[in-house]
């Protein structure tokens, strides 16, 4: 194991958070590398100093659960959720309605009144279609006619 890799793992070594193999390799390297050993000692000193920041904490938690307030806010949250859910549902219904109304309008022209497309084809291409062809025109046939016309 080289020094660069060791230095990256020193922190976890210090906290005993390495697996057995990593731990063994690192220990072997530390035995023969004074530079890494020095760095480990500095890290340990820093960790001990940082730990002291918590020693100064001598407050006791005197917070009482204010059930009245908690209940009030919980009810408010429930109301908010209901309003948000209702709004989301209304928006979803509106979007669905708009999408389907547009699809329905297209479908109405293409399937229920295919003659409209046949007439369009005729006016675009200038070709006259006979009556029997007009009668047999359905949705797919009409589309073929239109695409053939192009």
């Amino acid at each position: 194991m080289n020094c660069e890799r060791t230095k990256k793992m020193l922190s976890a070594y210090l906290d005993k958070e390495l697996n057995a193999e990593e731990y063994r390799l690192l220990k072997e390297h530390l035995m023969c590398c004074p530079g890494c050993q020095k760095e480990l000692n500095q890290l340990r000193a820093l960790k001990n100093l940082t730990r002291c920041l918590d020693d100064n904490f001598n407050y006791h938690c005197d917070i009482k659960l204010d059930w009245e307030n908690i209940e009030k806010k919980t009810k408010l949250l429930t109301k908010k959720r209901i309003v948000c859910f209702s709004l989301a549902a209304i928006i979803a219904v509106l979007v669905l309605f708009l999408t389907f109304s547009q699809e329905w309008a297209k479908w109405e022209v293409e399937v229920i009144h295919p003659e409209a497309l046949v007439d369009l084809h005729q006016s675009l291409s200038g070709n006259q279609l006979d009556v029997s062809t007009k009668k047999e025109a359905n949705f797919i046939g009409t589309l073929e006619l239109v695409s053939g016309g192009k």
Partner: protein
Amino acid sequence: MDKAEAQVWYQGLTLEEEKLWFEGKVKSCENGLLRFAYHLSGNMDKARDLVQEAFLRAYQYRRSYNNNYSFESWISTILLNVYRQRLKKEKFFKIFHPVKEREDGEETEVWDFLESSEEGPEERTLKREVLNFLQKAIEELPSQMREVIILCDVMNYSYEEASEIIGCPLGTVRSRLHRARKKVRELVEESYGEDFLSAWE
């Protein structure tokens, strides 16, 4: 206990019993939570406020608590999320009303525990100064590094507990902590010299 069983801990409980259960759980971890809030915010009033908010949210979402995990970790995660949201808000409002981080009078901690230590007065003074410096250095770290160093170094949590609270993999905790310590060490060495920490052991 499997997952399905754990998720329905409230089954068969009345609302009053749920409240009692919640109160019991909160009592068992309130001091740890206040400590965490204090180290995050650096201010006792803010810390109390954070804990109150965390209790409220925890109660509102109590049914999403999974009995397989520690209650303290679960509620600490809630507290951390509350803190992150407030920090975002503060940062946003600072754009319009820039204010100083700390008032001058607040700048130094008392470090009462040093008074009862066996160290000499000079050592105590130096230690006091270094602790103030360390606290500032940690405050100035990027928030992700700060959260990890507070949990693992200041509060002495394991990597597993920290990863549960922060909600990231164990490897991420390890690398963030490594970077955080490196950064703090660099700052200490910049101000006090390269061999300062070696002499401190």
